[in-house]
């Protein structure tokens, strides 16, 4: 069971959180994007072998949606790449 850092509550057990999936690119303007790009946005989820940026909802805590980088090989919560948001 992972220990997830919540900016408000500190490190808390994974069981307090709901998984929100990997962070996708920003939602494109649906009126200004091609069908292909829209489907790509909807259906393609980042699934790297290594660090992935993902969201967790502290549903059984303060209610924050938070973002972490997690290494899918080890579950280690890591620093994101320096050029990431």
């Amino acid at each position, binding site marked *: *069971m992972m*220990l997830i850092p919540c900016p408000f509550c500190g490190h808390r057990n994974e069981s307090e959180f709901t998984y929100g999936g990997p962070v996708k690119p920003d*939602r494109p303007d*649906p*009126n200004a994007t091609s069908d292909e790009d829209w489907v790509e946005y*909807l259906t393609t989820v980042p699934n790297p072998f290594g660090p992935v940026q993902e*969201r967790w909802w502290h549903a059984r805590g303060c209610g924050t*949606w938070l973002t972490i980088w997690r290494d899918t090989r*080890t579950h280690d919560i890591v620093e994101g790449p320096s050029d990431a948001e």
Partner: protein
Amino acid sequence: MQNRRLPSGGGIDRGRPLAFRFNGKEYTGLSGDTLASALLANNVRLTARSFKYHRPRGIVGSGPEEPATLVELEGRRASANQAATTVRLADGMSARSVNCWPSPGLDMGAVNQLFAGLIPAGFYYKTFKWPSWHLYEPMIRKAAGLAGAPEAPPLDGHFEAVHAHADVLVVGAGPAGLMAALVAGRAGCRVFLADERAEAGGSLLDRRLEIAGKPALDWVADSVAELKSMPNVTHLLQDASVWAYREHNCLMVNERSPANSNVLERNWRVRAGQVILATGAFERGLVFPENDRPGVMLASAAQAYVNRFAVMPGERAVFFANNDSAYGVVADFRASGIEVAAIVDSRDVVPDFARKLAGDVPIRAGSVVIGVRGKRAVRGVTVAERGGHGTEKIYCDLLLHSGGWNPTVHLFSQSRGNLRYDESLATFVPDEAAQACVSVGGAAGKLSLASALRTGAEAAAKATGTEMPNLPAVVEESYSIAPLWQVDARGAKGKAFLDIQNDVTVDDVHLALLEGYDNVEHVKRYTTGGMGFDQGKTGNINIIGAIALQKGVPLQDVGTTTFRPPYTPVSFGAIGGIREENVVLPYRHTPVTRWNLDRGAFMYEAGARWRRPGYFPRDGETFQETVNRECRAVREGVGVYDGSPLGKFELKGRDVGRFLDHIYTNLMSTLKAGQCRYGLMLTEDGLILDDGVAMRLGEHRWLVSTSTAHADTVHGHMEELLQTQFPEWNVYVTPVTSQWNNATVCGPKARELMAALGTDIDLSPKGLPFMSFADGHVAGLPARVVRVSFTGELSFELNVAPRHMRDLWERIMEAGEPFGIEPVGSEASHVLRVEKGFLSLGHEVDGTVDAHDLGMSWIMSKKKRDYVGKRSVELRRRGNAIRRELVGLLPVDPNDQIPEGAPLTPGGERCPTEGLVTACVWSVVLDRWVALALLENGLSRHSETVHARLKNATIAADVMEPVFHDPEGLRMRS
């Protein structure tokens, strides 16, 4: 008759005899015994049959490494597949061997031995594959005969799961672990110490060593007393296995005998800052012909039986070793007066200190055991020089062997730490740690007492940032080994076992390699070596040795297989803890639940764990009569239902209107305060997420209701959007589901009932029109009255604070009596909504349909440029694919009920379906069965006849609009 109990010594309590049964026979042991030591004390040598060949087996080890004797416990604490060496003897205990029937002495499965040559590695895979393994599996499982699961849960207690936190978690209370715990405890850290044995001491319990000039067990007792006196040492658990090392230093501990007798077992999830692994080492066996016969035992196990349990595992022993540790056992045997016939040492040179320990026992250096005589018990051994010359037969009833020591790296490896092969120890030791953990003592390959104490103290000093303490004085021991991976002397014939539990021999490994399975993980799976309950604790390194020898590569290059939890078997009950569903997920109740139950309501779960009445049966009524009565009250008079479980969220902020326009398909921001509007929410991929009503309370204040089951989903959806996509929008969401209860009165006489209740709100059609609300008082209670309708009748939803709900309810029932009011359950609600063709998530909405399919194109705003799911719905509908659309069905025979879910096929033929029936109810307004269905191109097929195809019949039905009652909606607007 404990005729093998030594007259003195041991950690057993001779004043407390315990009666037990084994394979139907009565025996007596002593308090402090394990089942294994008690059996040995009673001279029970043949205790098991093996898994594949049903060979006779005895007790091999003394702890969780035991590969041979698995038992099934019977009676009140029934439990399957336990190693006899880890079962603490209890009075009245009853156990039986697994793998044999009716007993290990007379085992019908033993005929397998006659065909042993026909059961090579991979036999099952090769033989039982046509037409399907599943055809053979039940029979093979039965023949293999591992114990079945107990039939009922234990009667006299429950399991428990608990969380704990520690600065330092110490695994193992041997010398290294105790030393580490002392140092960490003295530093003031929160220390959690767990040890798998019944008492602290680890290997010190089994040996005769001194610490600081006194018996080592005195030091153990002092250490435990000191730890107990420290308030910061939070847990000192014995008989507790740390069985899993998970991510982020989360470890699982299975406490098997908690102090509270109501708790059968307790499972701890411990989050530790630093983990100190003081898990010791296991002795591994040697690989020689017939090394599985009853009476062939690990030397260290024999040492434990003699010293800890005062049991003589045999009368005349021969030792076979490739290292020095066996000589200490010889010394203990001599001190206890047990005869040692010879020591067979495969090394050419035996160190002087070892020779001294052996005393006058003859040592055959450079020699090996090439055979064992006796099938059900050892009667003697044949010894030869390593090359096979100079054979000699030695009479004995016990053969004690030692092939070296394997650090117990299971947890370290589970934590993803790397292992490295250590030439001087001829085994794998921990290398680089992947988490905040450190191995000490035997677990790190530090086999001597002095190095165990030192490494334990060092690790704890480092973890706590304290000074290294003075260590108690002990005699330094030395250890050397010359690896002997298998005896291959000329004349050595017979099965040489690598994995005794799964009957894997050297020949099996050779065959696997020959057939191309040359990765160690493949060999493991093909031969099943190391896949038993013991996880190959005594045999795995020998398998790696056998592969290395055969391939001619170093062991480091072969590598180990992956270690996985659990380290020792754990009951499912312990993992689950108290998880009966009502404990983990309690039901949610409204203030009217008690009233409902008193009224004899049949309760349903209404989603999200809410309990709601299904219907209110009366004496002499059939189910259908009950539902019809409740429906008629609503259609003809007045009914009332408790709508409290609907999800409710209050949204505040400048941008709520804009936000609701984004999450609903229709326009919400144009609502005026005091109005409400039905809306549909989609997911971004265009499927229906939920439906509900939004109310505008004020300029920047709204109330949104959701379906009961999807309240949490919608809440998460709103928060995710607001926090991740629109953080700059000013919207605050507060769940108020439990802050508002509601009683909804509905039916043509609802307004009359409201008048009887008394209210200061103008309820006239003009004063409070359909889809509006007002705050005021009803029956003297503060209330918000909302005109929405889920039944198609004139309805007033009376929202009150929970503290007023029961009061309101009772006043409604009282005032409603002259109108023939009925409380309405969810069965009647279902009928009423079907008659109106109102959709129900989970019935008509199944993850494929959209609003257009449901005939609700009007709700898909064309004015809005964008909202969640808009683009995807458009995309899905492009290309004119055939869609299943919502229709009403009238069975041609009005008395024909169509089962919900029944497929519709063209002409009722056996062919691909063109739809399905989503709901079918007895309509009280039409006095016949009516149904809703999703039908291909259904919107343009009204007045056609379609067919539901059942198993033994077809039902014809006419297609119509999905509305059976008041299609203009005059009644609910009245």
